[in-house]
């Protein structure tokens, strides 16, 4: 029996903060913000997942459910702290595949 593959959206983001942040701090902040805004059920449907994060450039790639991109963006907008210090997350680009996101990154 064929199983419908889940569609995803990949978001390239960057962080502005008073200091550099680790992968764990970023992942925690995303999970926390999504859960505060949309609850545990929302977290399960949005499915935020940190795919890649570069601590030097403080930018990375995040995956979420294709039909909940707006909720994901709202959750990122409500991130105000990471670890102990103030921070803000901004979405740079959105794409359906990591490959095209990286392609966009190279051409940008």
């Amino acid at each position, binding site marked *: 029996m064929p199983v419908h593959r889940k569609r995803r959206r990949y978001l390239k983001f960057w962080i502005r903060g008073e200091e550099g942040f680790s992968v764990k701090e970023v992942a925690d902040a995303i999970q926390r913000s999504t859960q505060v805004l949309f609850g545990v059920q929302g977290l399960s449907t949005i499915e935020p997942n940190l795919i890649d994060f570069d601590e030097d450039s403080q930018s990375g790639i995040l995956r979420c459910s294709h039909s909940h991109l707006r909720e994901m963006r709202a959750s*990122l907008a409500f991130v105000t702290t990471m670890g102990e210090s*103030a921070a803000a997350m*901004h979405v740079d680009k959105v794409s359906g595949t990591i490959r095209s996101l990286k392609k966009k990154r190279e051409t940008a």
Partner: protein
Amino acid sequence: MRKFIDLHLRPGSSGKTMLQEAVRLGYSCVGLTSENGDRGAPSKKLDEDGMDVVRRIDLRPKNANELTSSLRRIRRRFEIIAVECHSKPVARQAARDNRVDILNFPTQIRGRRRVRFDRQEASLASGTNCAYEINLSDLLNKGSHAASRLISMMTVEVENARRYDVPVVVSSGADEPLLMRGPRELAASMQLLGIGEEESLDMVSDVPWSIVERNRRKLVSGYVSPGVRRV
């Protein structure tokens, strides 16, 4: 392609940084607030980063008379005039005065219970084309309880605005770069208030842009009234 505007930045000492941040976030126009009514706000010319800067003032009058006299004094010096309504008489006067562009309401729950964008206020504002503004910074850095109360109050206010066709503007209201958010993030946050995708994108682009254009036409020398210009 949409032209995004953040109509409410309160730059303080970090004006240059905030303008650079706005360019990076994808805005093509920002409103810089002057708090004290001086002439220090930048002109409407393009900034060196290619950013269109709008002169804005936030008035905090104590009573309706003070509001009227302030408006008489400064209307032609600023492109956008917003009024922070901290009492009902001020809110009513601001809503019925067509020199006011934007209405703001208290961010504290207690204050908001006293003065809010109720149906009467919306009815008055629809007659003067006064816009209702939502600042995302009011919701950030608040505890879950306070934020949830404010969201529920704002949802009712947005419903009132829709009922009377009052334009709604979404801004960041940021006073530091860390409180600034991208236009699509601002629009996405409006989902919490029950606003759809296209409508919320209009609130950060077409709606504020129409207010700016309308006022710029009025500030051109020779303007007499809508449709009438001295040549």
